[in-house]
């Protein structure tokens, strides 16, 4: 506990020494603190969950209420009796904008360059989190005296001088699973998760005009930190405890942060986890394209002109897939002829509907 308090106190002391305060005027302070305790016990039967999450930002608000982008997300799920998974994303600047804009979209590529990873270096320029101001922002004298320190060029906002950024995370994950007998499932399972995320970032300004009258653009660094972890349902096999555990963290600054934010797998920390239970949330079917003669006959029958209701034959296929518990679409079913059981399914449908 003392060590963890020291982490935050130390960070604040470093920040104060490096460049004064100015938080909320010419600097952004953004932080989160998460504590999760998850306890499942069979004797007596109990499921206990405690989540303590703090999020906060102190940042300047510019004309017309404009604010620089920050983003934080936290996700906790447990789809079975004990299969917890945790995801967290923490970002500022272009990385925050990218995460929010793309959310669960695929990893983007430029048109006509679907496989060009180098083109992503160009794409990140499209995610520009700068705010454009009509007037140069000023800081009230009283606040300036107390908080916002000027740079060597006499300006409150960073122009050409160098200013420090502090960006850090602190994570601990603890797991204990216990079996008292030889049963397949554990009698008790405990999970403890602690994470702190902190960003302290100067705000930079640039005059976009040649006459010194604006407009001005203000911006903060692109910073990104994510964590995505999952623990599968623990079991006892031949007396040996088994469970799947996956854990991945990303930490990046600058263009690397924005490039990582473009990657769908990184953004999944906000949405769907990478852990063993992923299939529980989204069913994923993938198979090579293959159309057999039987499938071709069904498709031809479905698409040919009929005096029956135009969509009746399509509905008959959908109804068949539902009755037979084939959980895929008509389009997928008719084009994955190499999948196990497909030939028998096609034949049954042909027989039921007297297809020639």
């Amino acid at each position, binding site marked *: 506990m003392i060590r963890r308090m020291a982490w935050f106190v130390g960070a604040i002391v470093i920040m104060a020494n490096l460049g004064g305060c100015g938080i909320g005027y010419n600097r952004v302070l953004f932080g989160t603190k998460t504590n999760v305790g998850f306890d499942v016990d069979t004797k007596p039967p109990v499921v206990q969950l405690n989540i303590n999450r703090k999020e906060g930002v102190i940042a300047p608000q510019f004309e017309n209420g404009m604010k620089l982008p920050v983003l934080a997300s936290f996700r906790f799920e447990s789809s079975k009796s004990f299969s917890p998974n945790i995801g967290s994303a923490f970002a500022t600047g272009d990385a925050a904008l990218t995460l929010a804009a793309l959310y669960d979209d*695929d990893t983007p590529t430029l048109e006509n360059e*679907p*496989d060009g990873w180098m083109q992503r270096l160009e794409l990140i320029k499209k995610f520009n989190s700068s705010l454009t101001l009509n007037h140069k922002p000023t800081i009230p004298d009283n606040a300036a005296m107390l908080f916002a320190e000027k740079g060597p060029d006499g300006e409150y906002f960073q122009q050409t001088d160098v200013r420090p950024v502090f960006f850090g995370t602190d994570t601990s994950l603890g797991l204990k699973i216990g079996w008292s007998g030889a049963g397949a499932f554990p009698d008790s399972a405990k999970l403890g998760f602690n994470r702190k995320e902190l960003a302290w970032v100067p705000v930079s300004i640039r005059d976009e005009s040649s006459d010194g009258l604006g407009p001005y653009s203000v911006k903060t660094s692109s910073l990104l930190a994510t964590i995505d972890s999952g623990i599968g349902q623990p079991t006892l096999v031949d007396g040996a405890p088994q469970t799947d555990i996956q854990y991945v963290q990303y930490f990046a600054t600058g263009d690397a942060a924005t490039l990582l934010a473009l990657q769908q797998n990184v953004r999944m920390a906000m949405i769907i986890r990478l852990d063993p239970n992923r299939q529980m*949330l*989204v*069913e*994923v*079917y*993938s*198979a*090579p*394209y293959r159309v057999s003669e039987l499938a071709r006959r069904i498709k031809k029958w479905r698409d040919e002109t009929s005096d029956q209701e135009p969509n009746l034959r*399509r509905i008959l296929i*959908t109804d068949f897939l539902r009755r037979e518990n084939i*959980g*895929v*679409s*008509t*389009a*997928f079913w*008719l*084009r*994955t002829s190499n999948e196990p059981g497909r030939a028998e399914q096609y034949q049954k449908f042909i027989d039921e509907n007297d297809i020639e």
Partner: protein
Amino acid sequence: MARTEELKNVPKKEVGDTVDDFIADGATKVTVNKNPTSGKWNIKATFP
């Protein structure tokens, strides 16, 4: 429960028909990407 279906290595002349079929089946999003090794196309459909 959400569901995604992906058909791999679809011949070019079948892409349009396949996409139409996915949409007729109720897909809310269909993406098409060229497979760099086979030169054929991968089609991914998302169902709510």
